[in-house]
Every structure is written in structure tokens, then in C-alpha cells.
């Protein structure tokens, strides 16, 4: 009797997980299916469980590939901004994290505490003065304005520091005896050893900048400078008839993230979980 109850319970739990997984996947599947439906229907009815399959077509995609030039400008901007953010922030954050891990110097602990403290300070609080600063530096509507605040990421510094603590320091002494400079040690010996942490942080920074919204919304003014989230958000108006670009375009914004996921799958979890600090 007891055993029978247990198997029943197991079935219920497993079915529960099937249901929860379905709920988690449904919106994404719904988006993909909707992208093949006439946009006029979506404006009128929203996403519906019942729809005419014979109505499905590639029109939204044809439109976006042939007519929606500004969508591709946004896509290009997003790619450039995310690419630059990943390269710069990884390099600079890794340098800082590395130094905090391997060197003993005065003020080291103060700097480390500052890093931890900044993780706790929401960017949005500093947003207005930073916006003012960007205006006075005449950086409004430039890539640089979007990238600057992300360039030294405290979360990444923290992560690199934790990783670099475990690096073999004997290698440093050996390299010094061989006449290597401190910078040579970092770039030629230690950085290659830190590659797994670079992969994880590439994912974190990539996701952050690809999905970044509020700050680009402030500093980007002209349509041809918009990033994807900012551009797509302009299509969210109830009066708009741009649902074709919005829906098919939304599907295609996920592609680079999925590629990132496939290439760096092993590092994805650690990259994403340290990123919990930023929504």
C-alpha cells in the first residue's frame, strides 16, 4: 500500500515538472509560432491558443529582411556595442581582479571592499548625474556613452578575483627569474590560465549589454543609433502597426544569445549565476 502511494506521488511530481516546463517554454514557443502569423491578427487578438494554421506564412520575415532597414541598423548597433563591451570590460575587469588576487599592496583590501560595495549600489541611482555628465562631455548618441558605465564591471572584478586566487603563484616567480615583466606575466602566463573565467564573464557581459535597456534609452537619441531593445520598445505602442517587425524581430534577437549558449555551454551556468546581481 505504502509503495503504491509512493509511485503515485512520483508520477504526480514528474507530471508537475512536465507542466512547469511547459509553462516556462510556452511563451517562447508562442512567440516563434506567432511570428509566422499575420500581424494584423496579433494586434487585434493578441497571442491566442486557437488560430488558423492555414493563415501562417513568412510575410513578417520577408518584410523584415526587405523593408525594415532600421531594424538591421539596431541589430548592427547592438552587435557592435555588445562586442566592444565584452572585449573592454573583460580585459579591464580581469586586470583588476587579477591584481587583487595575486599582489600584496597597501589599499588592496580597501579596493576589494569598494568593489563589493559598488555591486550593492543600483546603477539607476547614479543614472541622472551620469546622464548629465554624458551631456557635458558631448557623448550623447554615441556608442561610447552606452559602453562607458559597463566598462569595469564590479561583478566581473569579483569573479576574476575569486578565480585568480587559485592560480599557481610559483609560475610568477619562475617567470620573474626568466626576466618577464609583471605585465608579461599577466598577458602571457596568467591570462591563458584564466580562460574559463573569461568564458563565463563573456556570457555575463554579453547578456547584460545585449539586453541593456534603461541606460541606452537615456543616452541614445536618434533612431539609427538605437540598440535592439530600445528600438523594439518604440514599436510597442498600441497605435503602431509595426507588429511584423516587433514579433519577427524579437525572435531574431534571441539568436545571438542562443549561439553564445551553444558555444560556451559549459561556462554558461557560472556566467549567468554571478550575473544575478544585475536584472
Amino acid at each position, binding site marked *: 500500500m505504502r509503495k503504491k502511494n509512493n509511485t503515485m506521488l512520483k508520477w504526480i511530481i514528474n507530471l508537475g515538472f512536465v507542466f512547469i516546463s511547459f509553462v516556462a517554454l510556452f511563451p517562447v514557443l508562442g512567440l516563434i509560432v506567432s511570428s509566422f502569423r499575420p500581424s494584423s491578427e496579433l494586434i487585434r487578438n493578441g497571442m491566442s491558443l486557437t488560430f488558423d494554421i492555414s493563415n501562417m506564412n513568412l510575410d513578417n520575415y520577408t518584410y523584415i529582411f526587405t523593408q525594415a532597414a532600421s531594424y538591421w541598423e539596431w541589430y548592427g548597433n547592438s552587435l557592435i556595442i555588445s562586442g566592444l563591451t565584452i572585449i573592454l570590460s573583460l580585459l*579591464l575587469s580581469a586586470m583588476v581582479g587579477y591584481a587583487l588576487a595575486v599582489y600584496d599592496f597597501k589599499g588592496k583590501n580597501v579596493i576589494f571592499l569598494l568593489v563589493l560595495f559598488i555591486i550593492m549600489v*543600483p546603477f539607476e541611482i547614479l543614472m541622472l*548625474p551620469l546622464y548629465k555628465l554624458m551631456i557635458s562631455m558631448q557623448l550623447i548618441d554615441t556608442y561610447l556613452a552606452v559602453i562607458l558605465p559597463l566598462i569595469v564591471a564590479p561583478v566581473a572584478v569579483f569573479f576574476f578575483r575569486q578565480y585568480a586566487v587559485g592560480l599557481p603563484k610559483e609560475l610568477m616567480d619562475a617567470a620573474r627569474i626568466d626576466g618577464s615583466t609583471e605585465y608579461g606575466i599577466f598577458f602571457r602566463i596568467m591570462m591563458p590560465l584564466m580562460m574559463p573565467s573569461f568564458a563565463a564573464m563573456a556570457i555575463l557581459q554579453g547578456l547584460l549589454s545585449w539586453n541593456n535597456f534603461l541606460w541606452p534609452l537615456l543616452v541614445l537619441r536618434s533612431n539609427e543609433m538605437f540598440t535592439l531593445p530600445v528600438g523594439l520598445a518604440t514599436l510597442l505602442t498600441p497605435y503602431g502597426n509595426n507588429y511584423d517587425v516587433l514579433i519577427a524581430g*524579437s525572435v531574431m534577437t534571441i539568436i545571438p544569445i542562443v549561439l553564445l549558449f551553444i558555444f560556451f555551454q559549459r561556462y554558461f551556468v557560472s556566467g549567468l549565476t554571478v550575473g544575478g546581481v544585475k536584472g
Partner: protein
Amino acid sequence: MSEASAAKNMATPEVTPDKKPNRKSDKKPNKFIKFLNSKKVAPWVFVSPFIISFLVLTLYPAIQAIIMSFQSVLPGQVTFIGWGNYERLLNPTFFRALQNTSVYVVLTVLVLTIIPIILAVLLDSKVVKFKTIFRASLFVPSLTSVIVAGTIFRMMFGESDVAVANQIVAFIGLDPIEWRYNSWSAMFLMVILCSWRWMGVNILYFLAALQNIPRELYESAEIDGANVFQKFFYVTLPRLKPIIIFVVTISIINGFRMFEESFVFWETSSPGNIGLTVIGYVYQQGIQQNDMGFGAAIGVVLMLIIFVVSFIQLLVTGAFKRGD
């Protein structure tokens, strides 16, 4: 890279396998490079990006924010107005924003802690088959941006009675709901959007922590005759405490800074401010109305609230006791 290698070549005096310190003898290398390469200076060169960015992009704006909050900031005309901005904060719109944000924080913290713990414990047990598939599917939503996710939810929770949400509502036997126009459903939309995106990530946090609990603890509990629930409450939960504190802390901070989950449903103005958040109010006043002094004051107050709440939370959960 090339600079570093050049520096290396200069600092390398031919071949020196002897162990004696040979630095004194070679005077050839440039003094500046030698200075940069000293063990005292190099760490500072490495951390300089952080120091510069801290000074310019954190400290300066933080001080500016406080100064601005006491000013009336108009283009070309900045005047000190004392507590004026703070006095203006005592208005129903700000209270509404604060109320919305607080409710949102409480709900997201509860939903995004309790449910992921339960799901993670089940996923970690022997009961569930196909763990990898379940874990992966729960994780997919976190790959979407809030804008994309919001677009989807906006269509699913559309006003028409054939949109998914209202079809389900009708199936249960209720009248269709105008999701974006009721106070309670507005909050529901924001919380469900956030929960949908973050559930999988929090499950991963808890799963990672669960895997670090030694199996022997469960075995000895079993020997003592503990049942499933006793094991959960007396072994699992205490062991998960550090990660719970972590998840709650970041959920609180992320909740207070919420803006996008509201923006995707109503852009910048919702009927009766049912979707207005504190950061949304900062955006509305500071950017759209160009009243930066007032916007800064809202930000300063929010910062204080976050500090106080986080501090109380850490105190209550005893995070300070162990010295971390």
C-alpha cells in the same frame, strides 16, 4: 601585448641562468619602464581602470546626485533650494510608486525564493526523471530580454477574449480580464514577468548549493528516523541559509530598481499609476520632465531605503554573525 613583449625584451639581459639578483648590473632598460615594472607600482597599474571608473562613474555621480537633490536644475540655471525637492516628495504619486515597488519587492522575493527552493530540492532528489531536460527548459526564459519577454506577455495577456490568458480565464468560467487596466492584475503582470524570467536562474543557485550538502548528513538523519519533511527542515534548509540570504538580497535590490517590467506594459504612463515604480518616477520626472534635481532626490531616498532594508534583512537573517 606587443608593449609587454617589448618591455620584456628590454628587461631581459641576454641569458642569465645564475641565481644571483642581476637587476643592479643592467642599467640599459628605460627608467620609466623599470618604474612601471616594480612590484610596488605594477599592482596599481592593474587596478587603475577600477580606480578611474570608480572616481568618474561612481563616486562623482553619487556626490552629484546628493548635490543635485538640493538644487533646482534647469538648463543653464542651477539654484540651491535646500530641502525643497524632498518636501515635494510628499505627494500621492510618489507614495503610489513607493507602494507599488514595495509590494513588488515583497512578492518577487517570496515567489523567487520559496518556489525555486522546492523545485530545486525535487530536481536534486531521485524522484524526478529527465532532470537535465526540466532544468534546461526552466532556464530558457532567462535568455530573453525584458523587452522581448514583455512583448510576449503583453500579447498573451491581451485585452481581447481570445488572447491566451483570457482563454484560460474563460475556461475556468470567469469573465475576461482587462489585465493592464486593473490595479491587482497590473501587479500580477509585473511579478509574473519577472518570476518567469528569473525562476530558472534561482533554481540553478539552489541546485549548486544542494550539491554541496554532504550525503552523510541525510543518512544519519535517516538513521535517527527523520521523515522527508524533517530532513528538509532540519538538514536542507539550514545548509541552504547562505545562498538563501544571497538570493533574497539580490532580489530585494533588483526589485527596488525595477523599471523595465513596468515599461514594457505601459511605457511611461499607466492608468492611475498602477504600474508606476520608483525608478519609473525618476525617469518620468528627471528625464521626461527634465526636473533632474527632483529626480535625484527620488534616487537618494530610494538608495537610503535599499540600504536600510538590506541592512535589516542581513541583521534578521544573521548574515553578519559569521563575519561575512
